[in-house]
C-alpha cells in the first residue's frame, strides 16, 4: 500500500515537473530566457534581500538643484534623480539605519547644465565631497566602513572621475573619497581608471513613455538590414557604407526614427562621446539586434545579461568589413538573438519607468547590490582605523561647496 502511494506521489511529481518543462518550452518558442554569468537573475525580486537606508540630506544637494534646472529630469543622466525617488517609496527602504545593508546618499552631481543642456562636472567633486563630509559627521555609518557599504549614483560620462574629457578624467581618477564605495554609473570600459571593480553599470536614461508611444505591430516585416542615425563621429561607418543599399545610415534624425528601428534587423551602436549610447537601449526596446562597435566596453548589468548572445560585437578596426561580418552570421544565431531580445524582461531591464515596475532597471540595480551581500567582514574598520585620504586630489576639489 505504502509503495503504491509513494509510486503515485512520484508519478504526480514527475507529471507536474514535465508539465512545467512543457510550459517553459512553449514560452521558449517565442522568447528565450535570459541567463547571464550571474544566472537567471533578471526576474529576481530584490524585496526582502536587502535593506537600503536613504540619508536625509539638506535640499541644496538635491531638490534645490532640480528646482533650479528641471531639464535634469529628461536628459540621459536623469537616473540619479529617479533612483532617489524610487528608493524613497520602495519596500527595500528602511528608516532604521542599524538594520540597513546599503546606504544611499541622494546628491545630484550631474544637474549643473549649460544653456545647451550639457552637464558640467567641474563642481561635482566638491559637491560630492561636501555631501560625504556631511554624512560622515552626522551619522556614524560612513566612518564605520569608510563608505564600503555605501553606494552612489554617478551617471555622468566617466563616472566618478567627474570630467567629460577622457584625458582629464583619467588624470583625475576616481574621487579618492569614493575609493571604497560602490558606484552605479553608465560608463563601462574594461581596464579603465574610471571603472572600478564592483561597480554596477546601468543604461542611460531613455524616456519610456516616448519610446512606447512609437511602437508598431510586430507583424510588420523587418525590411531594413542595418539602420543607423547619428552624428559625425561615426564617420568610419559613413565613409565605407554610405553607398551600400543594405545600410540605411544618415546623420539626420527623422521623426520616424523609432518606427524605423522596429523595421530593421541590425542597429549600429558605435562609440560615442563617451563609450556608451542610448542607441543600445533603443535597439533593445525595439527588437533590433545591437551592433556594438566599442572596444572593451562594459555594457549595462553585464553579469545579469549575456550581451555576447544578444548583440554583435565588432572591433573598431573591423568597421570596414562590417557588411561581411554581419552577412556571415548564421541565420539561426540571428533568430536566437531576436528571440532573446523579444523577452519582455530584457526590455524591462533597460528602462527607468515611473512608477517603477517589476524587473526594471531600478530593480536590477537593487539586485546587483543584493548580489554583493553579505558584506565581507573586512569592510568594517576597527576603531580609529582610517583608510581614505581626505586631502588627496586636486586642490580645487578641496574647496568647500
Amino acid at each position, binding site marked *: 500500500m505504502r509503495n503504491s502511494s509513494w509510486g503515485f506521489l512520484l508519478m504526480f511529481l514527475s507529471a507536474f515537473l514535465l508539465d512545467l518543462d512543457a510550459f517553459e518550452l512553449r514560452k521558449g518558442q517565442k522568447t528565450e530566457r535570459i541567463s547571464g554569468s550571474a544566472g537567471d537573475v533578471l526576474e529576481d525580486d530584490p524585496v526582502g534581500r536587502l535593506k537600503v537606508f536613504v540619508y536625509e540630506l539638506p535640499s541644496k544637494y538635491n531638490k534645490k538643484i532640480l528646482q533650479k534646472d528641471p531639464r535634469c529630469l529628461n536628459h540621459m543622466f536623469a537616473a540619479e534623480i529617479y533612483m532617489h525617488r524610487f528608493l524613497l517609496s520602495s519596500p527595500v527602504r528602511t528608516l532604521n539605519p542599524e538594520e540597513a545593508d546599503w546606504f544611499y546618499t541622494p546628491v545630484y552631481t550631474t544637474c549643473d547644465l549649460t544653456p545647451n543642456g550639457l552637464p558640467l562636472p*567641474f563642481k561635482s567633486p566638491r559637491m560630492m565631497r561636501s555631501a560625504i563630509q556631511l554624512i560622515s559627521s552626522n551619522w556614524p555609518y560612513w566612518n564605520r566602513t569608510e563608505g564600503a557599504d555605501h553606494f552612489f549614483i554617478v551617471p555622468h560620462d566617466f563616472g566618478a572621475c567627474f570630467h567629460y574629457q577622457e584625458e582629464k578624467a583619467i588624470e583625475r581618477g576616481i574621487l579618492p573619497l569614493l575609493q571604497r564605495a560602490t558606484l552605479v554609473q553608465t560608463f563601462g570600459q574594461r581596464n579603465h581608471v574610471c571603472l572600478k571593480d564592483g561597480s554596477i553599470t546601468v543604461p542611460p536614461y531613455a524616456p519610456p513613455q516616448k519610446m512606447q508611444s512609437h511602437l508598431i505591430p510586430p507583424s510588420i516585416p523587418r525590411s531594413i538590414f542595418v539602420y543607423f542615425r547619428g552624428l*559625425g563621429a561615426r564617420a*568610419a561607418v559613413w*565613409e565605407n557604407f554610405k553607398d551600400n543599399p543594405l545600410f540605411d545610415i544618415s546623420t539626420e534624425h527623422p521623426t520616424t526614427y523609432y518606427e524605423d528601428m522596429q523595421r530593421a534587423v541590425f542597429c549600429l551602436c558605435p562609440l560615442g562621446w563617451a563609450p556608451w549610447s542610448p542607441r543600445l537601449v533603443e535597439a533593445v526596446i525595439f527588437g533590433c539586434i545591437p551592433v556594438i562597435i566599442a572596444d572593451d566596453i562594459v555594457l549595462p548589468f553585464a553579469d545579469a545579461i549575456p550581451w555576447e548572445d544578444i548583440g554583435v560585437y565588432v572591433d573598431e578596426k573591423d568597421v570596414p568589413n562590417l557588411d561581411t561580418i554581419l552577412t556571415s552570421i548564421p541565420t539561426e544565431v540571428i533568430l536566437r538573438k531576436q528571440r532573446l531580445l523579444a523577452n519582455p524582461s530584457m526590455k524591462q531591464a533597460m528602462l527607468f519607468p515611473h512608477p517603477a515596475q517589476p524587473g526594471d532597471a531600478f530593480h536590477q540595480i537593487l539586485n546587483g547590490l543584493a548580489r554583493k551581500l553579505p558584506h565581507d567582514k573586512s569592510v568594517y574598520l576597527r576603531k580609529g582605523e582610517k583608510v581614505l585620504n581626505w586631502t588627496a586630489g586636486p586642490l580645487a576639489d578641496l574647496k568647500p561647496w
Partner: protein
Amino acid sequence: MKFQVLQQSHANRGRSNSCRGASPLDSSADGSGGTTKSAAAIFWIMLHCLCCLISLVLGFRFSRLVFFLLFSSSSTNNLYTSTLTAPFAADIAETLSFTTSLRNFSPPLKTDAVTSSSNSRVVVGRHGIRIRSWPHPNPEEVMKAHRIMQTVQREQRVQYGIKNPRTLIVVTPTYVRTFQALHLTGLMHTLTNLPYEVVWIVVEAGGATNETAALLANSKLQIKHIGYGKKMPIFWDARHKLESQMRLQALRVVREEKLDGIVMFADDSNMHSLELFDEIQKVQWIGALSVGILAYSSHSDEDPFEAPKNLNELDEKKSPLPIQGPACNSSDQLIGWHTFNSIAYRQKSANYIGDMAIVLPRKLEWCGFVMNSRLVWEESEFRPEWIKDLDMVATGNGEIENPLSFLKDSSMVEPLGSCGKKVMLWWLRAEARADSKFPAGLVFLFELQFNIPNSLEWRIEPQLEVTVAAKRTPWPDAPPELPSKVILENGQKNATKTQTQRSRRSSRGKRKHERLSARISRERTEK
C-alpha cells in the same frame, strides 16, 4: 560660463603679454639696435593678438593646436573630435576644446596603408577612419543579407502573423473578351503569390471555353473552371446582374463540394493588395472591406491629361477616390455603410461594354465582402441563425446586389481593415471598345512570363511601317500633331483612354494588306 572665464583669463594673459611687449617696444624705440628688434616684437605681438582673437572666436587655445600639429609625432597624434550622442552635440562641437589622447593604440596609420586603406588624414575616434579600397557592396553579401531578411520575416510571420491560415476560396466571374487575358493574368499572379492555400472558382459566361482554359492552365493553382450557360450581355446593367448570378453558381459549387475556407469575390479586373489576404483571414462569419472605386467624377468631359482648368473650392475638398465600405463609430462598431453615390458623377456613365465613359459600380459591390464558406453549406447547424439559406436567396429573379442579402441582420457584419479605414482593394471596369475584334491571332502588347499558345497570340501583321505615337502622352518626346483625333468614328471629340487607343491600334493592325499611313491619309481626306 566656465569657458567665458577661461577665455577671459586667456585674453587677459594676451593683453598683459602685449602690454609687456609694448613696454620693450617703448624702451627699444629709444635704444640703438631698435628697428629690427621692434619689428620682430611688433610681429610677435600681432601674431599673439591674432591668436588671441582666433581663440576668442573658436573657444579653445588655437596656439596649442598649431603647436601640436607642427611638432607632435604621428603615432600619438590622434585628435578627438568632440561629438556627443545627444541631439545638442553640434553646439558642443563648437564650444568644447580639442584634446590629444595619450593612450597607446594599435599601429598608426602608416601600417594601415599596407592593408590597403586610403590615406585619409582625418582621424576620429581612437583608430582613425579606415576606408577600404573598394567601398562597394559585394553582390554575394547582398544576396546573403536578403536571405537573412527573408528568414527573419518568415519567422515574424510565424510568430506574429496568422496562425492556422484558412483556405481561400476565390470566386471570379469572367468571359472571353479582348482584355480577359490582361485581367485574368493579373489576378492569377496575385493569387499565386499568396502564402495561403487557394481554390479558385472561375465561372465563365457562355460556357467554359478553350481560350480561358488555356490561360488558366499556366498557373499552378487549384482551379475549378465552371461554365455558365448565358452569354455576357453588352449592357452594363445586365452584365452586373449576370455576374451576380454567376457568383451564386459558384457558391452552389462551394455548397455541393463542401469547401471549407473563406470565400472572397475577386473580379478579374480588380486590383488586390497582398495585405488584403492577410486581413481577411480574420473574418469569422461575414466581413466587409473598404473598396476604392477607380472612377473619377467631374472634368471627365475634358482630356484627362490636360490640367483641370476650372477647379473650384468644392472639387478640391472632395476626396478624389470614392470608397465603398463599412462605416464605424469611434468604438469601432459597424454603424452603417459608405456606398457609391452615382449622382456625383455628372457626366454620362457607360451603358454598354466598351462605351467611352467610365463604368460605375453598384452601391455596394460583391468584392467588398468576404464570407466563411460554412455560411452556404446545406446543413444549417454549421451557420448562425441570422444567415439565410443559399437556396432561399438564390431563387427569385431579383438581382442579388451583394451578400448582404444573405443576412437577416446586417449589423452582424464584421468590419475589416481597421474598420474600413484601410483600402486594400480597388474596383475598376476597363474593357476594350465594343468594336474591337478578338479573333485568334493578335499579339499581346505586354510582356508575359509564360509561353502563350498560338491561339491566344496577338500579332500585328504586317509589321507596322509607321508607328504613330499617342497624341497626349505624358512623355515630352511625343510628336506634336497626330491624326488620332480624326480617326474617331463616332464623332466624339472626347479624349480617349490609353487602353482603347491601344486596342484601336491593334485592331487597325489586323488589316493585313493596308499600311497604316495610307489609312491615315485616307481618313484625313474623308474629313
